Each structure stands twice: as structure tokens, then as C-alpha cells.
């Protein structure tokens, strides 16, 4: 299974703010994961509440948009590509492979932190 790694840009999960964030990036996506709650306590008690999680994903260049509900519910947005010109098939396959590799890495990070 292919992985395209993310760098952790900032980790504010343990600060005092009401809404914590973990920011990730690679060449294809910038992703911010927010936790609206007491992350440290919830993590320690192994009671991370999925209802406190929200994710903002910003694709870079031509990366496909992702809708991320939680680590196990991620969609690749293909709405505008219900049909594609034959000339764009290779490009679309490449975009999907990139999305897939990024999703694999993202899921690993989300499972680790949340």
C-alpha cells in the first residue's frame, strides 16, 4: 500500500486554547485537524470524541479535493468529473493514486493522534 507522507507543520493539541489543532502538509495537501475539547484528558482516557473532530483539507495544484469526516470516513471528490475526456484519463489516474497515498498516510496519523 502506497504512502505519501505528511510533515507535521504545527501541533497545538496540548495548548490551552478551547480548540486545538494539528496541521499537516505535503506537496499535494494542507490539512488542519481540529479538536474542540480537552484533547489531553480525552486522549489520556482513550476517549477521543469523534464529534469534537473536524478537518479542513486544502488541495494544492491539481490534487483532488478530499472530504474528511473522520479517519475512517474519507471521500475523494469526483463530482465535477462524472465524465472526463479521454485525454485526461492518465492524469486522473495519477491524481487518484496521489490521493490514495495521501489518505493512507493521513489515516495513520489520525489513528495515532485521535
Amino acid at each position, binding site marked *: 500500500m502506497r504512502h505519501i507522507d505528511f510533515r507535521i507543520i504545527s501541533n497545538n493539541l496540548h495548548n490551552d486554547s478551547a*480548540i486545538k489543532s494539528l496541521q499537516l502538509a505535503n506537496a499535494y495537501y494542507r490539512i488542519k485537524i481540529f479538536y*474542540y475539547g480537552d484533547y489531553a484528558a480525552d486522549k489520556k482516557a482513550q476517549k477521543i470524541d469523534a*464529534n469534537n473532530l*473536524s478537518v*479542513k483539507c486544502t488541495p494544492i495544484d491539481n490534487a483532488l479535493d478530499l472530504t474528511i*469526516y473522520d479517519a475512517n470516513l474519507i471521500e475523494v471528490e469526483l463530482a465535477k468529473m462524472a465524465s472526463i475526456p479521454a485525454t485526461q484519463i492518465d492524469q486522473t489516474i495519477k491524481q487518484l493514486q496521489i490521493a490514495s497515498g495521501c489518505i493512507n498516510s493521513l489515516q495513520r496519523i489520525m489513528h495515532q493522534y485521535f
Partner: protein
Amino acid sequence: MKFIDKERNILIKLQQTNYEMFDGNASDAFDFVAAQLEKFPAYANVVIREQIMQPIWYARFEGEDLRYHIQSMDERRKMAHDGAIKSIDILNRLSKNLGLEPFADVDTKDRHAVAELVGQYVSEVYNNGINKSFDDMTYQKEKEYDTKAISKRLQKAVPEVHFDQNYDNTGLTL
């Protein structure tokens, strides 16, 4: 109060509190609010697409193929619906913590009520957009911009363009 006004009030309040809830990080605050609001058109989009495609699928497929398409869309619809519910809960919490009225006065355990509310939200935003009603905040924001500041930003971003030192209205000398 319109949803657009509620969104605006949240942004104003976040600014007034120096984005304290986000440890002073304005970018995080904007992304957080956007992440919630984006869930509404995402859900509406799934519902609309389902309505458009279902008659086509029933006409086009049968048996296992038909079941696959219907079930896939149902799963997507549920995911998007759950996402919208979660976003409403989060926006209501955020509004409460900022001392504002709830973003949406709806029982989020009532999935049908949430679906209706998302419809109202999308309808309001869509109508606002197509009627080209000029947004007050945008208007004021544009008024606040001075041309020198814009020129300096442009100069920084596009250094090869020649700028007149005695700025004209645009700051650009072509």
C-alpha cells in the same frame, strides 16, 4: 437572523476576542469555521445528485448493479448527513462559547429537521449569491483598503511591474 449574519457575527466575535479560542491563530479560526460550513453544501450536493441519478439508475441498471449504485449513494448520503449534524453541533457550541445565539435552533437528534435546515441554509446562500445582494462586510472591507496598501502588496507580489512612485488610483503605471 439570516445564516449569513450568524456567520458574520461569529467572525466578528472571534476577531474581537483576538482568536483566543484558537490561541490567537486567526488562520486556524477561519479554517475551522469554513470546515463546518462546507459540510452543508456537501450534504445538499449528495441529496441533489441522488435525486438526479436515481431515475437514471433505475432505467439503466437492474439487479446487483442497481443495488450497488443505490447502496453507495445511501452510504454517502448518511456520511454527509452525519457530517452536517456534527457541524451544526460544533457551530452551536462555538456560538454559545462566544456569547452568541445558536447558529441553528434545531434538535440535531432529529435527522429530518437537520436535513430541512441544511436545505434552508443552502437556499439562503444560493439566493443571496444569485441576487447579487451586496454584502455589507465586503463593502466596508473594500472601503477600508487604501490604494497605497494595495500598490505595495502588488509591488511585492509582482516586482517586474513598474510602479509609479506618485501613486495614481491603481498604483500601477502600465
